[in-house]
């Protein structure tokens, strides 16, 4: 009887410690959100939300500061757009090749090499964009400035290919063999099977892979901080220097902005903007996956 009570207590203890560790991650997330919101609210005491959301200039460190977030948002969207335009199609094609076409030997070699792309430090990618890709691009596009959105966008796209391809490939491989055979038995070619049957079957996984890739591109910092120019610029022209939200945060955090000033609080204002962008993307992804689930 005594032993039983002891075991029961032990079981309770384990359960409690598991609960505690689960709660800790929620606690950390909530405190990050809280601090972001708190400091951002402080910022909005000094600057009106209206000015923040509609102002077309972002010059918080100037003698006459302007606090319009739009240039940073367009900069982020521009670079993300370029990166996504590279990563999604290439990632999907790589996934189709690896899952449906590649013989075992090639797959064995190609997959680790591809995953190595994700292991390269992002700083290296940044300098690669700045010192290698930009000069090459300048040969074809003479009016491309030394810092621009195009080059880091492309490099970022290459960087996130493995994220997109490995998640997509996993979901394609998970399509049961008898579905594949059903298509081949109808006289379909490999290509028809891949595009008409495998991709629709793996759709929810592919959508998840795309959303991971886009989130990754929005949040990426180092490449753009190095190669995009650190210049808040309200433009959608990829040939000009720009600045993204993340690059701005890095730039200001590294400088010697005194604690508690409006300049300091801009970090959190930019941070909360970034937070809402990725949050809405995650919500979109969640909604999307649930919708797909219902369909299945």
């Amino acid at each position, binding site marked *: 009887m005594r032993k039983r009570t002891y075991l029961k207590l032990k079981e309770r203890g384990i359960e409690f410690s598991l609960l505690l560790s689960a709660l800790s991650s929620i606690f950390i997330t909530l405190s990050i959100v809280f601090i972001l919101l708190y400091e951002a609210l402080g910022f909005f005491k000094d600057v009106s939300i209206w000015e923040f959301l509609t102002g077309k200039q972002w010059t918080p460190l100037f003698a006459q500061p302007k606090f319009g977030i739009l240039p940073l948002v367009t900069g982020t969207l521009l670079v993300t757009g370029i990166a996504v335009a590279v990563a999604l199609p290439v990632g999907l094609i790589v996934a189709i090749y690896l899952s449906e076409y590649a*013989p075992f030997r090639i797959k064995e070699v190609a997959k680790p090499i591809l995953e190595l792309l994700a292991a390269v430090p992002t700083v290296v990618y940044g300098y690669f964009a700045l010192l290698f890709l930009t000069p090459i691009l300048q040969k074809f596009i003479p009016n491309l400035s030394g810092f621009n959105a195009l080059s880091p966008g492309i490099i970022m796209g290459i960087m996130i290919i493995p994220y997109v391809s490995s998640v997509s490939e996993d979901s394609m491989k998970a399509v*049961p063999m*008898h*579905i*594949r*055979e*059903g*298509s*081949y*038995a*109808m*006289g*379909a*070619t490999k290509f*028809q099977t891949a595009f*008409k*049957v495998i991709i*629709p*079957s793996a*759709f929810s996984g592919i959508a998840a892979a795309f959303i991971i890739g886009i989130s990754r591109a929005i949040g990426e910092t180092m490449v753009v901080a190095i190669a995009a120019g650190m210049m808040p610029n309200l433009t959608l022209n990829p040939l000009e220097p720009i600045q993204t939200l993340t690059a701005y945060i890095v730039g200001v955090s590294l400088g010697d902005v005194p604690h508690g000033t409006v300049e300091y609080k801009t970090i959190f204002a930019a941070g909360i903007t970034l937070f809402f962008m990725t949050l809405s993307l995650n919500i979109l992804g969640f909604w999307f996956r649930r919708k797909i689930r219902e*369909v*299945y």
Partner: protein
Amino acid sequence: MSVTHSYPLKAEVKNLNFYYNLVQALKNVHLPIAEKMITALIGPSGCGKTTYLRCFNRMHDLYPGNRYEGEIILYPDRLNIISPKIDPIEVRMRISMVFQKPNPFPKTVFENVAYGLRVRGENRKNFLEEKVEKALIQSALWGEVKDRIYDLAFNLSGGQQQRLCIARALATDPEILLFDEPTSALDPTATSKIEELIMQLKKEVTILIVTHNMQQAARVSDFTAFMYLGEIIEFDKTDKVFTHPSVRLTEEYITGRFG
């Protein structure tokens, strides 16, 4: 094996050997397939009946290391469908298959049935509609799904999904229809519907069916082949096989003494 001598043949298997890498799964198989008749293949698990069936639409070509030897002659043009010179896609265009588990694609009912035609480059809307309706009527599914032809196929019940797969296989007007244990994943009601359907279909198409269910073979087929360890032990008219088997092993199997 002259039981089929008075019937026109749709196909003839001669001296067929099949290897999974070094393992020989079919040994010297001979079998005539009578046109617009139902030929059943029975035998214990692992006897090679599914392997044998999958030679007919070259399914083994999808996996590396498989090898065919011998001939499967398709009439009337005497095409050896397992010859390496023949493109498997060409064979699959003429011989359709229904699988063990219903395997509809993540598409609408309509697109599932139209799949084989679309794969053949057919995109005329009226033509497709006509063909889809005809195939669904043939597979006895039209009445149940005609109002939800644009619903996803996954919303159908298991038995309906299997009949959808039959409609898909029929829509391309195949010369031979292969059934690989088509009712093993279904309940008795759905099973009897499928069996009825198979018997109906023999008016239009030559049928080969693999089954582990001996009553099913006895109920639906005209000819039965009993396979054991990769060989055909006995082949005869179905009533003969089930009432007066000429080989001891067949008798032991159909009376349930092994298998």
